[in-house]
């Protein structure tokens, strides 16, 4: 029993310790954003790795999600004779929830894990220590561009996901199910506004970008310098980032009604 309490106490201690360390890490990233020289070239490189290379998976997934949403929605709505609101159903679900959340989860799997693995490998091979010995702060050169580019990449990918989803939904609803194209679009467009839906969607994906960027770099940066450390950094990035995205999604929705 005493053992159990001790174990529990240690876990709580570890959690608070980790949280504090993560906070300091995040602060350091923010600080390094403004330290000169600004790493534009590195930033570009990271956008390429995190964003451009994720386009295919994002667009294909978006298309598939939009299509299935439209199919499911149509089959449900037609029972109430309300199939003309299909555009609104597909549009609202994609913009408010599925776009930002699924993009964040996919990006975590595709780019977040790669980011963590890359940094953890550099820790393991002493590449970061090598940089330190050359008087180059790895937080500035390696970590900050990776975390920052994720913040930019996430809303862009999310918007692409949503656009592909809307197109997929339109294809199924209008071309396959034969809903009038005008009705579909009007129902979609009149159900959404910029301030309530689109801006909220972008805000969500920016917050997810911050979360995924920071968690993946933090996990890589604090990895144990072993092969196992690299793999556990990668795994825990995917687990933690996904859970954080889903939990924070609830709170954003509850607090701001997005």
């Amino acid at each position, binding site marked *: 029993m005493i053992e159990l309490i001790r174990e529990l106490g240690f876990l709580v201690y570890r959690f608070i310790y980790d949280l504090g360390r993560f906070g300091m890490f995040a602060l350091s990233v923010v600080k390094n954003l403004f330290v000169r020289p600004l790493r534009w*070239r*590195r930033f*570009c*490189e990271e*956008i*390429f790795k995190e*964003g*451009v290379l994720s*386009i295919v998976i994002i667009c294909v997934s978006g298309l598939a999600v939009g299509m299935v949403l439209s199919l499911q929605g149509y089959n449900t709505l037609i029972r109430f004779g309300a199939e003309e609101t299909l555009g609104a159903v597909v*549009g609202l679900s994609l*913009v408010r929830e599925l776009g930002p959340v699924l993009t964040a989860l996919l990006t975590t799997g595709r780019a977040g894990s790669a980011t963590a693995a890359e940094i953890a490998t550099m820790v393991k091979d002493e590449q970061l220590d090598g940089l330190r010995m050359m008087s180059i702060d790895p937080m500035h050169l390696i970590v900050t561009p990776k975390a920052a580019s994720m913040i*930019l*990449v996430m*809303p*862009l*990918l999310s*918007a*692409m996901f*949503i*656009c592909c989803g*809307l197109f997929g939904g339109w294809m199924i609803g209008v071309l396959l199910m034969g809903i009038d194209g005008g009705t579909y679009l009007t129902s*979609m*467009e*009149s159900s*959404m*506004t*910029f*301030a*309530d*839906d*689109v*801006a909220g*969607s*972008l805000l969500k994906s920016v917050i997810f970008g911050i979360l995924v960027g920071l968690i993946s770099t933090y996990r890589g940066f604090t990895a144990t310098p072993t092969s196992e450390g690299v793999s556990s950094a990668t795994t825990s990035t995917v687990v933690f980032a996904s859970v954080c995205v889903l939990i924070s999604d609830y709170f954003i929705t509850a607090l701001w009604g997005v």
Partner: protein
Amino acid sequence: MNRHPLRDFIVGIFVLIGLAAVAYLSITVGGISYGGPGGLTLYATFDELGGLKPRAPVVIAGVKVGAVESIVLDADYRARVEMNLNPELQIPVDTSVSIVTSGLLGDRYLTMLLGGEETMLKEGEQLEFTESAVLLERLLGKFVYGSTGSEDDR
């Protein structure tokens, strides 16, 4: 760390596509164009909104010409509705506006019946003739109890 002109170019295209997607969502889907400072703002006061909400469309002859911007309670405890309309519209002063329902249980929206006066309403003016929402519950109540309590139609 070293230069890759092609990669930078691709990154540029990626950012452009992303921004285009954001712009499409904002402008077409989000309808950011309405409600700009250039819109024609008119007011109307109702006794009963019956579930009219901000963002509900305002239509003339079934064509959407604007949206409800905001709803407040005025000093006489009546609902004051601010509408944001297409600035090119010419609306006569004796135009009437009513709250109607799309279908039996659908959303409430505003429809305008244009008047015949020569004078047109200007920015920030009030529409005098309004018709409140018809509440289905009250109609049913009248039908069941045969009540003849008059409804204010102004």
